[in-house]
């Protein structure tokens, strides 16, 4: 019994020590947390830092826009297009060069405008091989103040929900980010081409007619040669 009570006293002592340590650590953690929150508030309020953050979030977009003043936007009247599989739609876009200074030599710029379709349901970009004959349009040059209308004929191959955006890659600066338009939604409804009423007569009729024709020919030939009497 003595031994047991000793053990109890020892364990109680050690427990008391660990609780004390835990209390110390939790205080330190709380201090650190308060310090971190305070510092982050301070950093957000300080003016140069938000600029840095915004540059990190979309560096090329803003920089290229500010340098070139290029803007691309989809000009379809509706923000959501509803159509059936197999139909064609036209995606209209406008590439605007808002810069007004025409005096400098390198004022006009060229590049490639291309369409991007993303399948929302499968969360993958669509391979445009069967969707559009011309995926990209090469624009040799666009002058300051000029606006270029662009259009893509898109065939709706597969049913689903998609987003469409148009991008422009500038030739002059190969490392700049593309200029992106806002997105529009595309809802492609499925179209079942089930047509058993139409195909059945042909599917069964053609072989049957051919068997009939060749059977008759064979019989007539057999009658002539004396095979069938």
């Amino acid at each position, binding site marked *: 019994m003595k031994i047991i009570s000793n053990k109890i006293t020892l364990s109680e002592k050690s427990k008391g020590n660990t609780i004390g340590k835990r209390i110390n650590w939790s205080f330190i953690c709380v201090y650190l947390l308060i310090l971190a929150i305070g510092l982050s508030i301070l950093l957000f309020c300080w003016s140069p830092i938000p600029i840095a953050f915004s540059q990190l979030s979309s560096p090329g977009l803003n920089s290229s826009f500010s340098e070139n003043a290029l803007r691309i936007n989809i000009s379809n009247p509706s923000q959501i297009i509803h159509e059936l599989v197999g139909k064609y739609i036209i995606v209209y876009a406008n590439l605007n060069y808002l810069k007004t200074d025409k005096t400098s030599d390198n004022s006009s710029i060229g590049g490639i405008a291309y369409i991007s379709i993303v399948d929302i349901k499968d969360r993958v970009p669509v391979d445009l091989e069967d969707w559009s004959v011309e995926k990209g349009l090469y624009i040799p040059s666009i002058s300051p103040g000029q606006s270029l209308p662009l259009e893509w004929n898109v065939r709706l191959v597969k049913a689903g929900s998609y987003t469409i955006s148009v991008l422009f890659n500038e030739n002059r600066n190969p490392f700049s980010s593309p200029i992106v338009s806002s997105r529009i939604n595309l809802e492609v409804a499925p*179209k*079942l081409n089930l047509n058993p009423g139409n195909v059945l007569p042909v599917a069964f009729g053609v072989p049957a007619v051919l068997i009939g024709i*060749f059977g008759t020919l064979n019989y007539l030939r057999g009658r002539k040669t004396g095979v069938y009497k």
Partner: protein
Amino acid sequence: MIIYRLEISGSIYSWRGAAWIITAASIFSLVAYLLLTDKELSLLDQGEMLFTFSEVIIVLGLVMSGINSSSSISTEIEAGTFECLLLTPIKHVQIAIQKMLSTVTIWIVLYLISIPYLIVLANGTNLAISAILYVGLYGTLLSIAISTISIALSWMLKTSKNSIMVALMIVLLLSAPSLFFATSLRKTDFGIMLENINPFSHTINSLDSVLVDNQQAVYEQFTHIWPVLVFTIICSIIFLTFTRKFEVKML
């Protein structure tokens, strides 16, 4: 045209000879029925359906033309009837041309059988006439090309087994880039080069552009038509060179 008539009667008049026609019609029926009644396949656009069906027609036509013509001379040699054929009062090249015409007639019969299916598959679209005309054009040109080269092979190799094997290999080689290569491989320099020189790839790409991309005008397809035409002319020149004179002493 005695040889031509004999060849055609052998392929059409008897039950055994006409079995291929019934089989081909059954294949067309099965493909068309599946395309229009299977729930998943019927989700395809009608242009895609027509394109798939056109591929089946062209490939079947090529295989039949290759097999039929590659055995045309060698079978006569193996059966010992070639000498009798040479004794007929017609030029050697005319014998070969009549054999070639009989193969092309078989293609035409196959093509005529496929027309009702094309019309049914194109129901409700403006693609029926284009599908019929372009399949007819490309199928006839390729059938002439394959028959001529196969007859020349049949004379050169003199055994049916070898000539059929080589003819089938030619058909497979021609169709490989379009049917077996993945899209990524076809977009490499090697793939593009193969597609540019391959008449079968031009045929498939043209049918794709007519039936899927709706570019039906002839001038839009001329870049695909002329390589097939050139291939047919080259095959015809080889055919005429090798079949001008059949030498009996070589048998």
